[in-house]
């Protein structure tokens, strides 16, 4: 209540009730949330992305099976939008292995000393994998000028023309290579006074929910001198024009609602035969209206002396011809990499296998591989098992877009193998 009393001192009386209402609403919402049972977050916080490996990681020489620890689900500010792999899989109850990848029906849940229900919290981080292939939304489509729209970097698609003339798209699978790359952000803090460096001043250091202990040992400066003047940079956001509100012509008001209700009321009275003098005026009014809306003219039809046509139904089936149209051709595109992991500078060979798994041949087959930023096509490294026209052009990810145009049509069951090499940047 102290907070409320303090707030009420600063606010005008008219807004006190508004704030009190808001406070009550917040209280109601908060108490409602406490009743919600704890649910386990999705097993993989990166479910939107394709999993490179779903199998749990075995312990290597350096990591050993961890024990479950209750996790605080508060997202850390400064680590937003990031998948914290593993931590989110923890269950906050006393059992610790109720569901998720650690679910083990045979584990002795409830026994705090049981280490058998230790989960395998860490699987993988998709950011450490370099993936290529698939068709990320929006899906790729072909425009009239024979260009592909919706082709994201890392997409690998093929489009072909069926016998019916339809242009169809097929996407490959995603292939992922473990190749983490690290970046550095460097800041050199400058000011020197005397012989010592001066710490940055004027930077807000808010205290978080857990409290930040500033008494921890510092790095360079134990005796810091505060810079007196604060540098303030005004961002462009503060000058942004704010156009709020709704234009008045887009507001539509209901019209003639009163008249409609009056009509309905009158009809109901007529229905139960309780006409009285007060309704006479209404009846007369709508009678006049009915008169006005009545059309005197009617359609006049003149029938001349014409004999009706005679329909003779004496036909019978002479023969039955069944036309069998085969299903359209369908391509299956498979992508493979020759390495599971690649360091920066390594060369990875990718293979594309294209097969017609449909019922009829397809023509105009074009395979397009849009490489991600970190894959660089090794010049003249591509080979195709059939005669194909190869083209490479830069894409929007500053990498290459590789295009193969097959010169011949692909019969049912036929397959094409394309290989090319990429260097990991």
């Amino acid at each position: 209540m102290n907070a409320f009393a303090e707030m009420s001192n600063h606010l005008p009386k008219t807004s006190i009730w508004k704030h009190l209402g808001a406070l009550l609403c917040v209280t109601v919402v908060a108490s409602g949330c406490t009743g919600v049972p704890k649910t386990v977050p999705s097993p993989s916080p990166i479910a939107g992305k394709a999993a490179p490996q779903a199998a749990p990681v075995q312990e290597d020489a350096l990591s050993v099976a961890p024990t479950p620890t209750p996790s605080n689900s508060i997202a850390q500010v400064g680590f937003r939008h990031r998948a914290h792999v593993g931590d989110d899989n923890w269950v906050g109850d006393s059992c610790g292995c109720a569901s998720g990848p650690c679910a083990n029906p045979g584990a002795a849940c409830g026994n705090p000393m049981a280490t058998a229900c230790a989960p395998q919290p860490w699987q993988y981080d998709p950011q450490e994998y370099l993936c290529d292939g698939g068709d990320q939304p929006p899906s790729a489509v072909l425009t009239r000028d024979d260009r592909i729209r919706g082709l994201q970097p890392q997409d690998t698609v093929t489009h072909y023309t069926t016998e019916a003339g339809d242009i169809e798209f097929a996407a490959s699978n995603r292939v992922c290579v473990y190749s983490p790359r690290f970046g550095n952000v460097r800041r050199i803090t400058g000011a020197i006074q005397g012989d010592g460096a001066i710490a940055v001043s004027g930077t807000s250091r808010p205290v978080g929910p857990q409290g930040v202990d500033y008494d921890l040992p510092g790095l360079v400066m134990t005796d810091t001198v505060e810079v007196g003047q604060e540098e303030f940079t005004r961002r462009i956001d503060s000058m942004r024009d704010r156009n709020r509100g709704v234009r008045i012509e887009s507001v539509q008001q209901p019209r003639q609602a009163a008249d409609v209700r009056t009509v309905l009321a009158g009809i109901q009275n007529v229905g139960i035969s309780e006409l009285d003098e007060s309704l006479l005026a209404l009846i007369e009014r709508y009678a006049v209206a009915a008169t006005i809306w009545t059309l005197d003219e009617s359609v006049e039809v003149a029938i001349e002396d014409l004999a009706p046509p005679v329909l003779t139904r004496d036909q019978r089936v002479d023969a039955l011809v069944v036309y069998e149209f085969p299903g359209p051709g369908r391509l299956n595109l498979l992508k493979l990499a020759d390495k599971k992991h690649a360091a920066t500078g390594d060369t990875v060979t990718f293979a594309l296998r294209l097969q017609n798994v449909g019922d009829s041949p397809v023509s105009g087959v074009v395979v397009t591989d849009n490489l991600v930023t970190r894959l660089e096509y090794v010049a003249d490294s591509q080979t195709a098992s059939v005669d194909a026209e190869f083209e490479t052009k830069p894409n929007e990810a500053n990498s290459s877009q590789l295009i193969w145009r097959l010169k011949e049509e692909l019969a049912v069951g036929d397959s094409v193998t394309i290989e090319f090499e990429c260097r990991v940047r």
Partner: protein
Amino acid sequence: MSRTSVLLLLVISAAASITQAADPREILGAPGGHALLTGDMPAGVVAATRQSMGYQQPPPTYYQPVEFHGPEGVRFSLAQYGSFEEGESNLMAGLMIGQVYRFRVTGIPQQAGAELYPTIEMVDRTYPPPGLATSYPIPINLDQNDLIAALEGRLVTRVIYLEDPQTATPLPEGPNGPAAIDVPEYQDPLEIADLRGRTVAILRIGSLAPPRAEVLQSQFFFGHPSWAPIFKPQP
């Protein structure tokens, strides 16, 4: 209701609306949000706060392999109970997450006898497939500019992050790892790194020398956290 009371109400409501009108900057908000953790915090705060907020490693300890890179001739050695060994040029070691390590840099080109004692703060780890942990260590890069700036008394903060492959720069990586993105003093390197990927470590290079007093040793070495040596196969 009298006319004066109506007027009074109008005045009160107008005053209330004026007091409630917020600065446009407050509505639009800063692009970075409210940064709870910043890059200029003392060494250990970012990792410790993160550990205390539920991202800590369950026991037993995982030692994250790191590899130190520097200019030609520079040697690195990690502190072992307050003393340093001779050092290696491309030192590899397994460091605990959430700890701050003090290491020594010697053999700086054209700075005979100069020594630097930077710190590395381990914020997060990587999740390699089994058996690949030491093949893909976190690179800790120091270039000549860092060392010169630190010897001049300035503080170099390098935030090392795992790059998001979707938004990675399409430039090839140099032999000594990625080139650093330099940010000015008024920008927060942690915020910039967080926009580009997942922060894993923070390197701070200053010009502090080890204290002579025995009492200050523990503070200087951040409580002597343990680390795992990684021996490379002999060629």
